[in-house]
């Protein structure tokens, strides 16, 4: 079987590159964040260098939850309008969400081991919720891979994504009412002033900004890749490969 050349496919989507200018800006922002966090932000008094993981851990989590929210909303829109663009968007942000959630689950235990003295604490709300959300996203992507028919794939995965969103409050409540929790209360988003020194706060907020940019840029790239794949399948079908 011969496949369609790369040029054909690129022409089909109007020459838009998968990795565009937005992605480059996001990548530069992340590099700048690392430089600032490592070199230009003071050490935390009690935790020392370990606290620097904060500038990656929390922004990744915010990126992951943003991506997951986009997946759930796009799925809802797909079930309603049956527009394949919504399905493509849901898939793209689910994949990006998986990457960010994996980052959260890697950086979390590294930090926890140093500060809490344990790699994993089951009765912590956010930990458990992140882990099981990670499993739902993996299940979502495996489900997509296991269905050939695009319309059926779209419907099934959208149903799973919407039910997954419905699951979040239940996991939240069941952990909350079963045991105590370990994560610190928010240090930035709280009624009183943020209890973070100014320099740290700026690094933290720019970390969130950089990771959100990266999240959206990756979703955009993945969305374009999805477009390319669909176009290529259409061209292949047209030419009878």
């Amino acid at each position, binding site marked *: 079987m011969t496949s369609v050349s790369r040029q054909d496919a690129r022409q089909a989507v109007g020459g838009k590159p998968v990795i565009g200018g937005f992605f480059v800006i996001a990548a530069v922002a992340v590099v700048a964040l690392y430089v600032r966090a490592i070199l230009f932000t003071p050490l935390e008094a009690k935790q020392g260098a370990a606290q620097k993981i904060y500038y990656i851990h929390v922004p990744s989590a915010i990126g992951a939850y943003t991506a997951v929210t986009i997946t759930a909303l796009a799925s809802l829109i797909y079930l309603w309008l049956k527009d394949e663009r919504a399905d493509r968007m849901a898939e793209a942000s689910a994949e990006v969400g998986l990457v960010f959630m994996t980052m959260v689950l890697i950086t979390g235990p590294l930090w926890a081991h140093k500060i809490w003295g344990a790699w994993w604490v089951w009765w912590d709300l956010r930990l458990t919720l992140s882990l099981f959300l990670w499993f739902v996203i993996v299940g979502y992507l*495996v*489900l997509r891979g296991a269905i050939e028919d695009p319309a059926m794939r779209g419907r*099934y995965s959208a*149903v*799973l994504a*919407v039910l997954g969103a419905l*699951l979040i409050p239940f*996991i939240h409540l*069941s*952990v909350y009412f079963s045991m105590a929790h370990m994560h610190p209360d928010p240090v930035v988003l709280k009624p009183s002033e943020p209890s973070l020194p100014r320099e740290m706060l700026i690094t933290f907020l720019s970390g969130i900004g950089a990771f959100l940019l990266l999240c959206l840029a990756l979703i955009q790239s993945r969305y374009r890749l999805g477009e390319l794949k669909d176009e290529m399948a259409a061209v292949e079908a047209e030419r009878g490969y």
Partner: protein
Amino acid sequence: MGARPPGTLSGALLIARKDLAIEFRTRTAFFSSLVFAVLALTIFYFTWDESIVTPNDRAPGVLWVVLTFSALLGLQRSFAIEEHDRGIDALLVSPISREAIYLGKAIGNLIFLCAVQAVAIPALALFYNMPVGRPLVVVSGIVFLAMVGIVAVGTLFSAMAVNTRLAELLLPMLSLPFFVPILMSAAQAAARVFAGRPVSEVGFLLKLLVAFDIVFIFACMLAFSFTLEE
């Protein structure tokens, strides 16, 4: 015979009766689930050191592990039986609403799984020397509430999994994360009841369980029609 199509509930009961009649004639799925459950109960007995953890302490844990996996085993066949001769097509052209098909399947599964547990729970009490009495009755009630939630989600995912390339391999992967809140609250509640604490202490966990059941029965019933659309 009247020409009027059956309503949702009577349609659902018809479907459930059909499934249970098929099961009652062959009894293969029932016995394999049952043997699996009892076998697992006995095998798990040897996974702890008896001198460190008493059988009474590990019984609640074993109960939930066995219950979850025997439920998955039972749920798998729910839509697999419709695949033979495309029985699902016949269901779809029948004048029974899709909500009723889902409800009927779910009721059939619930009765099936409760029948398995009706043997497995006494077997647990026997093999782990559990006190037979009020705690066991209360725990059976908690098991029932958990089963309703498991069946609500599992019936939908069973209908979805059967149409994919991975078929039965996909069901546990999709369902287990959804069983987390059920198992967490039900197992915590059951452990406390077994430990002799009053039921009022686990009231909130039970309310959460009931809320999960209600929300997911309706959500999955609505979602089910999306999985059938041709």
